[in-house]
């Protein structure tokens, strides 16, 4: 038996995984299977976007986490013996992937940023960042199936093809998980997706007070860009939502212009801006590592420099 499987929390992620899944399945001459437990109506949609087969997981009671599906998914994988399983690198996906990999006794490449078939046409070579982004590690799985979790936006979403056919199969309902969800608190502010923004102004701990974010916003506005932040700003200060945190544990951005304000430039952050065309930084500390990662730096106090920049960009 063989096949490529993809598993994701929602449609957006599934479409991205369908792209790489389709590519692999075609090269390996095998079938592409997508798992689905959200909106059951999506089965045909996924087929038209490249899936050959849909495995439908029955809906869960309100208080059950998707982790409940793990035994069902692992059992099915044991029976069908796919070559590869790709999952979305989301909070839920990462946990589920690790636990499924354990049940299947196989290896898992977490946060895989590139994925290629080896010369033998079978071995999947996967890349990921380690040491906070200082290094790139290449790995292969020595056991079947190869598994990987893939961050959002690593691949383009699949395009719809008319007239595609596929099978839809239902998997059995899982036993209830001992983990119960008591309450879901939705995110208060819906954050912008800045991963595709052309201009990003990013703030770090050099910003003293939450109110001062206005200064960064003004600069972003003057440039027609968006704002992002370092992890301490979203995680410790909670001044900006998680989605705006750039770096190895946040998002990657690839703008034409990135301006970092009061950011030291630790590798965990800089990893997320590697693909920016031009990197600029404003920092009081001439020796801050961000300057080594920047094309253009201004050594100065952001409170003094940013108003001047806003002025200059306006004209």
């Amino acid at each position, binding site marked *: 038996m063989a096949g490529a499987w993809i598993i994701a929390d929602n449609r957006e992620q599934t479409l991205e995984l369908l792209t790489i899944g389709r590519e692999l399945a075609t090269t390996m001459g095998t079938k592409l299977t997508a798992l689905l437990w959200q909106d059951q109506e999506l089965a045909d949609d996924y087929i038209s976007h490249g899936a050959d087969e849909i495995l439908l997981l029955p809906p869960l009671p309100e208080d059950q986490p998707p982790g409940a599906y793990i035994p069902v998914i692992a059992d099915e994988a044991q029976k069908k013996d796919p070559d590869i399983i790709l999952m979305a690198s989301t909070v839920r996906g990462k946990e589920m992937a690790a636990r499924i990999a354990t049940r299947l*006794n196989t290896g898992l490449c977490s946060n895989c940023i590139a994925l290629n078939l080896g010369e033998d046409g079978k071995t999947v070579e996967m890349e990921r960042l380690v040491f906070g982004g200082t290094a790139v590690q290449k790995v292969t799985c020595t056991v079947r199936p190869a598994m990987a979790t893939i961050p959002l936006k690593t691949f383009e979403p699949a395009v719809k093809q008319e007239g595609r056919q596929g099978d839809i199969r239902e998997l059995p309902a899982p036993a209830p998980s001992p983990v119960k969800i008591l309450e879901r608190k939705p995110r208060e502010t819906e954050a912008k997706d800045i991963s595709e923004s052309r201009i990003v102004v990013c703030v770090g701990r050099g910003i003293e007070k939450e109110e001062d974010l206005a200064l960064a916003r003004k600069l972003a506005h003057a440039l027609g860009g968006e704002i992002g932040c370092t992890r301490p700003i979203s995680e410790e200060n909670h001044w900006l939502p998680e989605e705006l945190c750039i770096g190895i544990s946040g998002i990657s951005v690839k703008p034409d212009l990135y301006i970092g304000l009061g950011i030291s430039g630790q590798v965990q952050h800089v990893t997320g801006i590697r693909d920016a065309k031009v990197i600029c930084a404003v920092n009081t500390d001439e020796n801050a590592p961000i300057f080594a990662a920047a094309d253009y730096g*201004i050594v100065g106090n952001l409170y003094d420099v940013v108003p001047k920049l806003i002025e200059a960009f306006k004209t």
Partner: protein
Amino acid sequence: MPNIVVCFKWVIDEAYIRRGSSGELDFSSVSYKISDYDRNAIEEAVRLRNESGGRVAAVTVGSPEATKGLKDALSRGPDQAYFINDASFENIEPSQTSAILADVIGSKIEYDLIICGEGSSDLYTQQVGPRLAERLGIPCISFVLKLTIDGNHIIAERKVEDGVEVTAAPMPVLVTVLPDINTPRIPGVKDTLMASKKEVVNIAKDDLAQTYEPTLQTTAMTAASMERRCVKFGAEPGDIAGFVEALEKEGVLR
């Protein structure tokens, strides 16, 4: 009074890794540390013990070199440490680490709650916690930002993409914690001195039920490159003008 187990990893401090002239990684001047988020895990275990009583055992798998991390870990408050070490454990991958941990924790340590960091600062695979739970056959709640013990259950707030999930699970249970759960202490002098008096249980490879083969193989490890212009300006009006002009030339302003 829960028995709490906390897992930590002794890792290379990535800030000291240099890029060699031909793109290789230069580890010659590295130092080691307790992985960042494992400090949060230890802090949380100790906080809960101080609140609810019980004991905290800190467990690590590593090469014998990692012995240096034991006192550091114990100075942060755990009552006891388990040091599972062998020269061959230097570069094991997450499936092995979790299997070895499960082997030892499952057979030698009483536990109601196991706490791991969300991911280690070196490999950051974020796998060891969930894999360990699966191996032990206990529930797992990952990416937790708030944790309370309520009788024989835990209540954990978990950060997910679309918000926060408040979850509950019966003990024994495993959680992985996010850095925002607490601020790890800087151990005081007495804490460090006291660490030497705490028990360390050494566990060798032979004490394990079996050997655990890797399922993931590293085929290459290279320095990530990032070549930039590195032009620096001051903050004088002339500098600002020069800076803006440079950006105009780059064609990145609209």
